[in-house]
């Protein structure tokens, strides 16, 4: 069975639906990119998948032994206060918390896992730096590392490249693609339809009807794609 199966789901706030009749499934190792305009409900969908909101209608099922607390998450905006004292190491380790159970402290294995992930993302030398003094790209890497500490199966990223410059954006996309190739399923919300088509294996387009869900090859040939690319993607 698929990792996540979404059937007939409506999403919204206080019973008022924003997105209706959503059907898609995410298999193990997929790289799903969710695109759509601002306010179309992408972040709402992420929050629902993470169990922070309940669905208005329909059903979301987890398969393959995936549990709610085994999902790594990179929120759209992390409203960290400007003067929050926190070192990179402290933040990344906090991703391991869901693996602690009732134990009060992190185990040696968890600390090693965090160190490995930091090495993998090339941020080992930032370890003792203060988070708020990092550049935007470095901060996103730190939050990505934290998300990776929280999961071995599924990573949910909500507009991870928002506000980053093109070079940093490209590096982050490549990093995410590599992580996906190593076997972690990725669900990413993005504005950037071109990047979505370049990197993802599946595309979900929400907002304007009809909703689209399928592989990226199908998406390239669909009407919705051309329409969206020329609406929002091309400047010409």
């Amino acid at each position, binding site marked *: 069975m698929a990792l996540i199966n979404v059937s007939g789901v409506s999403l919204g706030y206080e019973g008022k639906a924003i997105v209706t009749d959503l059907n898609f499934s995410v298999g193990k190792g997929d790289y799903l990119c969710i695109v759509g305009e601002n306010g179309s409900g992408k972040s709402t969908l992420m929050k629902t998948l993470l169990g922070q909101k309940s669905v208005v209608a329909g059903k979301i099922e987890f398969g393959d032994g995936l549990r709610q607390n085994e999902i790594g998450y990179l929120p759209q905006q992390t409203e*960290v206060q400007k003067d929050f004292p926190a070192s990179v190491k402290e933040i990344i380790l906090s991703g391991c918390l869901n693996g602690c159970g009732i134990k009060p402290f992190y185990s040696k294995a968890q600390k090693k896992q965090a160190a490995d992930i930091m090495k993998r993302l090339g941020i080992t030398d930032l370890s003792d730096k*203060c988070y708020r003094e990092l550049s935007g790209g470095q901060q996103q890497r730190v939050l990505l590392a934290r998300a990776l500490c929280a999961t071995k199966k599924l990573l949910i990223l909500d507009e991870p490249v928002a506000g980053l410059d093109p070079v940093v954006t490209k590096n982050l996309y490549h990093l995410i693609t590599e992580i996906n190739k190593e076997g972690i399923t990725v669900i990413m919300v993005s504005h950037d339809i071109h990047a979505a088509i370049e990197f993802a294996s599946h595309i979900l387009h929400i907002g304007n009807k009809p909703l689209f869900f399928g592989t990226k090859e199908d998406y390239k040939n669909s009407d919705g794609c051309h329409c969206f690319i020329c609406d929002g993607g091309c400047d010409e």
Partner: protein
Amino acid sequence: MNIIESLSSYFSYTFVRYALIAGVLIALCAALLGVSLVLKRYSMIGDGLSHVAFGAIAVAAVCGTAPMTVALPVTIAAAILLLGLNSSTKIKGDAAIAMISVGTLALGYLLLNVFSTSSNVSGDVCTTLFGSTSILTLSKTDVILCLALTAVVILVFILFYNRIFAVTFDEAFACATGTNTKAYNTLIAVVTAVVIVLAMNLVGALLISALIIFPALSAMRLFKSFRSVIISSAIISVACAVAGIFIAILYGTPVGSTIVAADIVSFIFCFIAGKIAKKS
């Protein structure tokens, strides 16, 4: 020499020793919690709770019961309520907190004035608000209660340190990855209530916020990781409490406001030190 001699002579009095023990413990708890409260923008909740505690103590005085037995449960209940108000989007959180805090303050004073049998009402009120001498009149039971409660607070803080950090730093992430943020927020609120009721003995209701906020802010000028901020704010807080109690005893100043004055001086010092460190 003279000062040291007179201090050591004061140490032969048990009430001085009790005051020091209680002062150090309360300052320690307040500082540990203060960092989270400041960072979570809960400073105002701390202030509001201290006023609730004042109202509760007024009720206890009128009913003739021990202050702690009324103040502790009432303040804990208020903490949970205020936290709920703060997170609900429908009622403006800060307005609700201000409302409850001035409301209980006014009602407490009213009750004391109308029903109190004491001949010196304004003196009593002043003591409760500014803690002028109550730290120096602690009984053995007070100190033991204080020891027990601070032990619980410190234990809770150590056991839940990693979770408190996660909830303070990024609640959305903690919640999404399966941490029960609501439970930990409630835990923080309950512990805050306990610390506030304890701290009323030391500095009085109106000055508690200072004890909670200043050490955290001072430490944040100097240090950049959560752990170092917590540890240094605990050290700053304890040092200021000890200095404040000594100065108060030597020069006969009110204990509470002397401790807060020491906290202010340390904040100014840390502020300047932080600026210099940034430049170099």
